[in-house]
């Protein structure tokens, strides 16, 4: 589904990713961990097509196509979803209106007619239940005045609405209380199918108790320096990143 080859990315002349390789197949869950500032969000943003990054080298193949030239909205319509580490507020724009616009843009791309108001509201209700987000949140403006945890839940709600093929969740667990964490993880698990894939970026092994990854990667200094099964997360939890730094500088 996703194949990243020798990706080198810089921003404002500063190189962030330095020859990163990653392959994600249908049905898989990958966890990416690594110290602060090593380029995890950068990787997520670049896959989603955020402007401002300079791709110095490499390619990102998604569903067999190189997507580097594809505008971000088309990547989204092609099924890439990014759960933001810091979701932005859009004052005055209701969640309902926002999601309705988004869904209909997705439908247009697929050559489908816009969803009727009735159908849409039904879908909203259904997904609200699925991710256990309160209806009152989705009646408000996009993320405006949401608490940190509410914003994260709202990301999962949007993911549920858009049913992506590839979901990248950037620290969706940060700032969540233990109950919310379970709800979010639960939501992700319910949305998991054989056809789609998930990349979770996290600092905490505890999320991986709920969303069990097939692979764990350590991103360090702009590269994936170590990959393994879910046990790797436990080792990291215990030992930190120092030993990897030592290993990788050998």
């Amino acid at each position, binding site marked *: 589904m996703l194949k990243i080859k020798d990706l080198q990315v810089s921003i404002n002349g500063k190189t962030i990713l330095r020859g990163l390789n990653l392959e994600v197949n249908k049905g898989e869950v990958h966890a990416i961990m690594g110290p602060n500032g090593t380029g995890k969000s950068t990787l997520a943003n670049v896959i*989603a*097509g*955020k*402007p*401002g990054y300079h791709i110095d080298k490499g390619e990102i193949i998604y569903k067999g196509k190189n997507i580097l030239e594809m*505008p*971000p*909205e088309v990547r*989204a*319509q092609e099924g890439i*979803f*990014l759960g*933001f580490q810091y*979701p*932005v507020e*859009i*004052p*005055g*724009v209701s969640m*309902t*209106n*926002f*999601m*309705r*616009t*988004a869904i*209909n*843009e*997705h439908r247009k*791309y697929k050559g489908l007619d*816009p969803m*009727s*108001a009735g159908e*849409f509201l039904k879908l909203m209700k259904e997904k609200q239940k699925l991710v256990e987000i309160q209806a009152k949140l989705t009646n408000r*403006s*996009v993320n405006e005045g949401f608490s940190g945890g509410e914003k994260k839940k709202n990301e999962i709600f*949007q993911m549920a609405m*858009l049913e992506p093929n590839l979901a990248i969740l950037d620290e969706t667990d940060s700032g969540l209380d233990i109950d919310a964490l379970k709800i979010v993880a639960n939501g992700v698990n319910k949305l998991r199918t054989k056809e789609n894939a998930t990349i979770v970026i996290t600092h905490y092994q505890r999320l991986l108790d709920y969303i069990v990854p097939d692979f764990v990667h350590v991103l360090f200094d702009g590269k994936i320096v170590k990959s393994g099964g879910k046990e790797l997360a436990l080792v990291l939890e215990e030992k930190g990143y120092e030993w990897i730094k030592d290993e990788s500088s050998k």
Partner: protein
Amino acid sequence: MKEEEQNNILDEVTQSDYKYGFVTDIEMETAAKGLNEDIIRYISMKKNEPEFLLEYRLRAYRKWLTMKEPDWAHLKIPPIDYQDIIYYAAPKEKKELSSLDEVDPELLETFNKLGISLEEQKRLSGVAVDAVFDSVSVKTTFSETLEKQGIIFCSFSEAVQNHPELVKKYMGSVVPYGDNYFAALNSAVFSDGSFCYIPKGVKCPVELSTYFRINTAGTGQFERTLLIADEGSYVSYMEGCTAPQRDENQLHAAVVEIVALKDAEVKYSTVQNWYPGDKDGKGGIYNFVTKRGMCKGSHSKISWTQVETGSAITWKYPGCILLGDNSVGEFYSVAVTNNHQQADTGSKMIHIGKNTKSTIISKGISAGFSNNSYRGLVKISKRAENSRNYSQCDSLLLGDKCGAHTFPYINTANSSSIVEHEATTSKISEDQLFYCQQRGIDTENAIGLIVNGYAKEVLKQLPMEFAVEAQKLLSVSLEGSVG
């Protein structure tokens, strides 16, 4: 706002030319170019006006000759040759029409293109429409229904013929002819406009709506509107404008006067979408308007809501004179400027009565190379004890070649009153745009969404049918402003 409508609106964002830029080919009867007392006599004669009105026009004209164009606004106004303007134009053969069949088919076609077919309006929406086509009203609908309630809603010219006593009593009582240069010009040469009188205790059952349209090349348009709400009455009035695409500049200097007597309430909404000129700033309407309401009686209320997206230059400060004790004035505005448009707009709230309250919510949106200024005056006189004003002026910038400015003037003559002023300037952030894009919404649609969200406080003041049009306009008028 229905979501479905919202989406239709967003779909339209992809159309980029000024949609209403067509010209109707109808025979016009026009006066010679230029301005002098003879022309004024000619206009007055053509309109079969009573003596007092001709006198009024002449006084205004003589006053105008002594005045100068205002130069204090943050605007660059090219010199206007007032002798190069035709001051009177009317569709030929204007006879009394009893049904739409008698209306020139070309004219109906124009209305159809604008989506404001009178028939449709009449039949479906329950909106009474006084359609002003150029200078002379062509058709007034619903007047019979309104008549039953004693409501008078007609063209200004008709009011002059049928209700001269009301015209004489109220015209110029809120905006005197000497008020400013453009008001004086209008008072001298005004062609037509709308007149509305709501009798005591009557709540007008429909939204009264007037569509204005400038049509003849080189014809200045001088609308005159007078709206009187008698004691305890209520009316919601909508004014909407579109104009055909033109290369020459067209001067528009309208005057709108509202009088609200004791316990009366008037809501006046405007969607203004006149030709703004092309992308290089060529052509477009000069919109120099004087709009003012007088809360004459106690506990009266006047509320202005405007969505301004058109015109090359806008000079406009709808305001309220709060004369009656406990009266309320409101001003809600969204002003969009794009490309080379210039706007200097805001509100004036003059508190005279005790316990008077005013609110100003202004949302400026600038894009391209445009300049958008808010200019507001809040004046609280000595008598106006315990009065309050709250002003909030927000500016939103798209791109870095446009300008936004705020000029608040506050003048308080007593200590028991409170005046609050808040101002913010923001930009649409790249993070907001990317967030939308990541959800599959392209840049133009994203801007439409964000801008409509930003202007929501004002848009929600509009009557439903107007809100739809306004949302559409906001998106369409900002096309191509980013990226």
